[in-house]
């Protein structure tokens, strides 16, 4: 089994579109604190917003409900779990329809929705979707440390000179 996480931050929002922005701000704060780069933070904001937007759209069919977002902080990565207790869906059929827009398809069959899962899978290092009572999406991003850093004098070495 995987090693335990260092810290856990949990957030629950009403399944309403106006609160997805709050989740974006939260992940931005956590990832920034962990030392992720700007582009990776923006990727995570987007991927997480897609997962939450899906939950807002599909989980409770217009009824009130909650979306739980858990941030598992590891030494080398951030794992985020988004779960709802609403309607589950046929995961395999959604996955089949996921992907970029095909420019060769006729105008009328061009999708306006359904890009979310494709974006999540492209922007995160790992995405798992499980159905149960509701839908649980777990997405992970690793911290990519600067390879350049190793070529530069290490802080210890610098310190010994000072």
């Amino acid at each position: 089994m995987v090693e335990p996480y260092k810290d856990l931050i949990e957030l629950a929002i009403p399944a309403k579109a106006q609160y997805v922005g709050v989740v974006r701000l939260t992940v931005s704060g956590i990832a920034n604190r962990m030392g992720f780069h700007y582009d990776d933070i923006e990727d995570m904001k987007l991927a997480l917003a897609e997962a939450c937007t899906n939950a807002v759209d599909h989980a409770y069919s217009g009824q009130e409900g909650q979306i739980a977002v858990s941030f598992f902080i590891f030494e080398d990565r951030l794992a985020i779990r988004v779960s709802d207790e609403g309607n589950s869906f046929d995961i395999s059929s959604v996955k089949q329809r996921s992907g970029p827009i095909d420019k060769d398809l006729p105008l009328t069959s061009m999708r306006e929705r359904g890009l979310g899962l494709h974006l999540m899978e492209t922007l995160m290092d790992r995405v798992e979707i499980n159905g149960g009572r509701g839908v649980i999406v777990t997405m992970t991003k690793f911290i990519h440390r600067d390879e350049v850093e190793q070529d530069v004098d290490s802080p210890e070495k610098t310190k010994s000179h000072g």
Partner: protein
Amino acid sequence: MNLTIQEKTQSDTAITMVVSGEVDAYTAPQLREKLMPLTKQKQEVFLDLTTVEYMDSTGLGVLIGAYKSLRAQGGRLVLIGMSARLSRLLKITGLTEIIDIEDGA
């Protein structure tokens, strides 16, 4: 968490709209409401996205809807002022191949 949409220039056949702020599940409906009538009235709709700070698939959905509506009557949608982030988003989703993108505003 705000979105503003302002008209910049307009002629009988073309209009340029400046979109600023965040386009997400909450604000995308506002963009759709402003944009869709214009796609029926104009031949060319230019969207200046220079000051868009955030956009996700709900915003892309609005762009696709506008593109389809304009194309259905022989018009065109043109995006200008694309940030590196937005360019990446359109590339990942395959939209760079479809929607016209021009440099500068």
